[in-house]
């Protein structure tokens, strides 16, 4: 099963008013891989994610999940078939304890359809998920009110929210943004662990150094179009990619810190 195409995007285009956010973007996602999507600001990365996950309806193009056409489906339907996403701006249900934030996905039709999903103590399940994600149970972290948690934990909470849905694909929208180097370092093994357990992951990132340690393949977007694809080394060496990030006539490229 690993290695087959699980998600296929064909010629996705979207304009907002006069602004061309994405233009004819196509890509394929293989089961079990971690795909990176990078590009300078404004290149259409978040719009692409919104198009795939149903938060924005495309003007043209199609999205296929396991060869099933999901173009134009509503966001909750797309989450229901197993594509979960994080949000760039993390807004937890702030007045609630951290673990209560997971009650919503645990009550979704998707979970209820799964064996054992209807019964059982959801609170306990939520706390278990949080513990796996790194919320130390002994320190009562899962019980803390969400608004009091530092950003590193909130990003993990976002991930936990996705995991509660038992998805097949997780799309992380700049999950490293706002975190310190050490916080990112502690997050990386978690994502590796998810991949080892069979999760397929798309990561949109600006923090390229950390990203390149995780991903197999990278796709580069610029100005709403797909610019390049390859392994991390190939992409970094690509002239066009450097130009997109740093502007033309730039001789020295950096290792990718945008």
């Amino acid at each position, binding site marked *: 099963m690993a290695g087959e195409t699980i998600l296929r995007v064909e010629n996705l285009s979207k304009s907002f008013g006069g602004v061309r956010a994405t233009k004819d973007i196509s890509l394929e996602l293989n089961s079990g891989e971690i795909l990176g999507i990078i590009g300078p600001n404004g290149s259409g990365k*978040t719009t692409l994610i*919104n198009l795939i996950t149903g*938060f*924005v*309806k495309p003007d043209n193009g199609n999205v296929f999940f396991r060869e099933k056409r999901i173009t134009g489906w509503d966001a909750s339907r797309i989450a229901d078939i197993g594509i979960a996403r994080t*949000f760039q701006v993390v807004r937890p249900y702030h007045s609630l304890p951290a673990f209560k934030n997971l009650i919503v996905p645990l009550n979704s039709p998707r979970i209820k359809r799964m064996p054992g999903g209807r019964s059982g103590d959801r609170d306990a399940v939520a706390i278990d998920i949080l513990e796996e994600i790194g919320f130390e149970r002994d320190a009562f972290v899962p019980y803390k009110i969400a608004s009091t948690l530092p950003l590193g934990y909130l990003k993990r909470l976002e991930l936990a929210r996705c995991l509660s849905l038992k998805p097949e694909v997780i799309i992380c929208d700049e999950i490293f943004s706002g975190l310190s180097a050490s916080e990112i370092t502690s997050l990386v093994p978690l994502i590796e662990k998810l991949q080892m357990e069979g999760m397929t992951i798309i990561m949109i990132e600006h923090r390229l150094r950390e990203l390149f340690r995780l991903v197999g393949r990278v796709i580069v977007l610029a100005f709403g179009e797909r610019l390049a694809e390859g392994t991390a080394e190939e992409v970094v060496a690509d002239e066009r990619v450097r130009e997109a990030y740093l502007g033309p006539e730039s001789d020295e490229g950096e290792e990718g810190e945008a």
Partner: protein
Amino acid sequence: MNIIFYGVVNSVSFALVAMGFTLVYGVSRLPNFAHGALYVLVGFLTWSFANDFNLPYPLAILISLCLSAVIGAVIYRLVLIRLRGLPTSEIIASFAFGLIILEGLRLQGIGGFKGFIGPFYVLPPFIDAKIRLFGVLMDVQRLLIVGVGLALVLLLWLFTHYTKIGLSLRAIAQDEQAAMMLGVDSDRVAMVSLAIGSALAGLAGVMVLPLGNVTAEAGYRVLINALAVCIIGGLGSWAGALLASSVLGFAMIISTSLFGALWESVVLVGTIILILIFKPSGLLGKQKELEERV
């Protein structure tokens, strides 16, 4: 032929009434439930100035319009400004203001204030005559409504495209954060928009009320009509409001001639529900449902 003329007049009346509301909502995302109240208030004020104070009619109109603009600005400055960003409170407060004015006009016997009850209040039309156009007998007042309405649309277009204040209104309407970064004061703009919106409500009142009586109950009707136009056209969309006014205007006239005037409300409700089912964001609505807030 009849239908075309009365349809046009009706459409423009709807548009007149809806314009102020669309302006305020488009600029500050505030549904001004006091809109209908201001429409009627200006009617009563004008009547009062003309009859109780014996001012010349045009002067009465002018003063009332200015007053309504001031009232609009005051409502914003005193209350709504403290509630920006709290959608629940904004809506409730604007609703409460609308009711205060509308029900307040019906008060009796408080400190000698005799309320405005009963169908006794009539505003004279500007020119009390009828002329014959293409075989249709028409009040000049109705033609004036069309004229003023079209002129107003043009004026507003020019205002929002060529004057500094008008441009700042459009800026805030399109992207509040960006406009603020460029130095536009969001609160001042909101106050201006509420003032203009209130004046527009008053203007609509002054133009349309002479066709009948001035009653406080009309305030609710007018508010509902304005809301209906905005929902059908798309909240915040100017072109949508104009289009919706035409649709509604003609629909009502056609239904009146076919089924009689009683079915007006049914047509209104039906159109609203149809739009909400088939094109929820309105005929020309720009924002698609919940999409724009990712």
